[in-house]
């Protein structure tokens, strides 16, 4: 069985482009080290998995599932995350770039601020490593959290993901994760969010297929 090899997608901006919200050092480590490790370990796990399938070795296949979920999730989540961010001076960082989504957010949370507050509460309530996501479930918007690197699976379309692993903010914010959550709103790519809201699940995962 032949399998594809995933590769680290290039960032659509420079490592320092999100300063001062997210430091260059964080972005460089996060992308070139952490994301790369998920890609490398995913490829290794899939290669071993492919051998186990060829050998009809079901116990080995089962044993590999945790590694595939963790590293595959890490690759998916970070690939979606980088595109959720944009330099604060860019047009994409203006919520006006997401008129359709904004209308639905208003309907659900009253206002953009109402949504930010609800999302912030979910993010700060995570116990341990994980992510907060704005997802589209059918025609409704919801906030969900996922632990560790569990990806958003099922029918939901991931619109906006925020990484709450400590490696996403610790070098700059230390234990002050509320300040990280506050500042990340300045570098959200609302154009990406709008595009994902208008599209379906397949569209959101296009970036991942491009990295194959």
């Amino acid at each position: 069985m032949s399998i594809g090899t995933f590769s680290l997608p290039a960032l659509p901006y420079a490592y320092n482009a999100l300063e001062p919200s997210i430091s260059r050092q964080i972005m460089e480590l996060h992308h070139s080290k952490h994301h790369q490790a998920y890609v490398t370990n995913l490829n290794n796990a899939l290669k071993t998995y492919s051998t186990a399938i060829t050998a009809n070795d079901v116990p080995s296949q089962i044993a590999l599932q945790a590694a595939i979920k963790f590293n595959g999730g890490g690759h998916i989540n970070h690939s979606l995350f980088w595109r959720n961010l944009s330099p604060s001076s860019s047009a994409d960082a203006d919520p006006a770039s997401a008129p359709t989504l904004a209308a639905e957010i208003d309907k659900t949370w009253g206002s953009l601020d109402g949504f930010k507050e609800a999302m912030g509460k979910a993010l700060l309530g995570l116990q341990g490593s994980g992510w907060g996501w704005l997802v589209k479930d059918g025609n409704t918007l919801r906030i969900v959290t996922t632990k560790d690197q569990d990806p958003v699976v099922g029918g939901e379309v991931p619109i906006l993901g925020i990484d709450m692993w400590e490696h996403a903010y610790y070098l700059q914010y230390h234990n002050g994760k509320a300040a990280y959550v506050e500042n990340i709103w300045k570098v959200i790519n609302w154009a990406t969010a709008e595009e994902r809201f208008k599209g379906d699940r397949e569209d959101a995962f296009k970036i991942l297929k491009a990295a194959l």
Partner: protein
Amino acid sequence: MSSSLLRTTPLLRAGLRARAAKPLAAMATTSFTRGKATLPDLPYDYGALEPYISGQIMELHHSKHHQTYVNGFNAAVEALAEAEAKGDAKTAAAQAPLLNFHGGGHVNHSLFWENLAPNGKGGGGEPEGKLLTAINQDFGSFENLKKQTNAALAGIQGSGWAWIVKDKASGNLTLVTRANQDPVTGNFEPLLGIDAWEHAYYLQYQNRKAEYFSAIWDVINWGTVAKRFGQ
């Protein structure tokens, strides 16, 4: 703090610290609502574990992270007591994840600080006596124990801890991992815990966590482990 005190609940420990002269039985019945968990002092300076763990990491880890667990635990205990008083079972039950997370964070860190000591001043070196005999028996060798522990730490997917524990029934030593701040409970007695949360090493080691896992053995207090083992 003696190792026997560490085995009691954090609330009871806080009560004991605050009113050490009072008899134990009286404490257990009276301290539940009034006694609050408090941040224990570190038994060494923040910079004392350098260069293996930086002073900045130790200060944030102790004065900010551990303090947050203490505060969260006290808040959850208070909310539980209020809900109980009102007969509000739903709200009482909703405190369970918070009690586990913050209470676990408080217990784990309290055990962890005492597992560490400055290199050459109680930290580093090798286990001795009955503890070493048990390690050789259950892990093959001290080197093997370190290797297996480091592999378990590296394999944690997310935040969590690795623990060398004593199985209370068999007396055997074994290695377990716990997610997030889940404490070691039940049939296992925690002897040695290593914190694999990123906040425990990131400022110094960044993504190179294997280097942190390798370095921490130079500041492990085997005297504490031996005491908890019952030597």
